[in-house]
């Protein structure tokens, strides 16, 4: 968008330079953030580094005229996902970070190094290709042409991609059910409930310290 704006006002060369500048800034943010996530010790710092990467990605989206996605990227990721991460980190306690560690499989680290080397070689090999995308163009609607980005996205989602769009509802239902199942404190199940007297239950609840609900 920015590039297009500049192309109209100040000519091709400036647009060219600015597109490269935006790319460079975005790439720097992405790589800094990613390295931060991988290398920093403190999970809070990792989450903040993740935000930098996400903003960098949004910049690259803008650089490629995917304006709407850039906005959604920031709203969904920086606005919701990272906040959730931070919330959980705070909720579990940063100081207990040793407790939140998984035991890696024995061969995991050599495997990771091997994987990294292989990936790097592959990337270097691929980066020599100047034309990655060999596909048939514009099979689900053209990106250029009249009409805004949002309009075209909307048209595509509600026609060709209608079914996947509707199916995301199932995903959200599962997420809701999952959150309820996993994170509520222990409640008596339906069969226990039918055996317990309601009054008894209430009185039992009243004298239970609130903190010890689910610690078995």
């Amino acid at each position, binding site marked *: 968008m920015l590039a297009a704006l500049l192309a109209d006002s100040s000519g091709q060369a400036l647009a060219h330079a600015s597109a490269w500048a935006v790319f460079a800034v975005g790439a720097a943010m992405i790589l800094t953030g990613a390295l931060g996530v991988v290398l920093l010790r403190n999970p809070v710092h990792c989450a903040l580094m993740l935000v930098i990467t996400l903003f960098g990605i949004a910049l690259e989206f803008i650089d490629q005229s995917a304006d709407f996605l850039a906005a959604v990227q920031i709203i969904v990721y920086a606005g919701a996902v990272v906040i959730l991460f931070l919330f959980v980190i705070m909720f579990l306690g940063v100081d207990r970070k040793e407790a939140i*560690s998984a035991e890696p499989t024995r061969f995991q680290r050599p495997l990771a190094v091997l994987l990294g080397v292989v990936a790097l070689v592959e990337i270097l090999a691929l980066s020599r290709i100047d034309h990655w995308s060999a596909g048939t163009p514009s099979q689900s609607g053209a990106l250029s042409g009249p009409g805004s980005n949002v309009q075209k996205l909307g048209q595509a989602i509600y026609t060709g991609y209608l079914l996947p769009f509707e199916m995301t509802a199932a995903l959200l239902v*599962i997420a809701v059910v999952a959150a309820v199942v996993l994170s509520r404190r222990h409640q008596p199940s339906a069969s226990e409930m039918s055996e317990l007297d309601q009054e008894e239950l209430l009185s039992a609840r009243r004298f239970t310290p609130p903190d010890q609900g689910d610690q078995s």
Partner: protein
Amino acid sequence: MSVPSAWYLVLAAVLFGLGATGLLIRRNVLVMFMCIELMLNAVNLTFVTFSRDLNDIGGQVNVFFVLVVAAAEVVVGLAIIVAMFRRRAAATADDIHILKG
């Protein structure tokens, strides 16, 4: 339209590789999870770049679905993590290796 798409694609590939490596070398579950988010973002960047290259809206639409899936995954994953570590608040070392033998 001036930066060649290969630059974006290589950047995305590097980001994906960083995420995958981070997932394998980190021990903190939350950070491992963040590395998965890095990988998903690399995919998003790849989709958008191909979308521009092919002049095709499909790639951008796919990013939407990735976003939804990522959001649902975050909810479920964090719920699992919270459920697990809240239950074992006192646990320290012998954490995630009950399942053997």
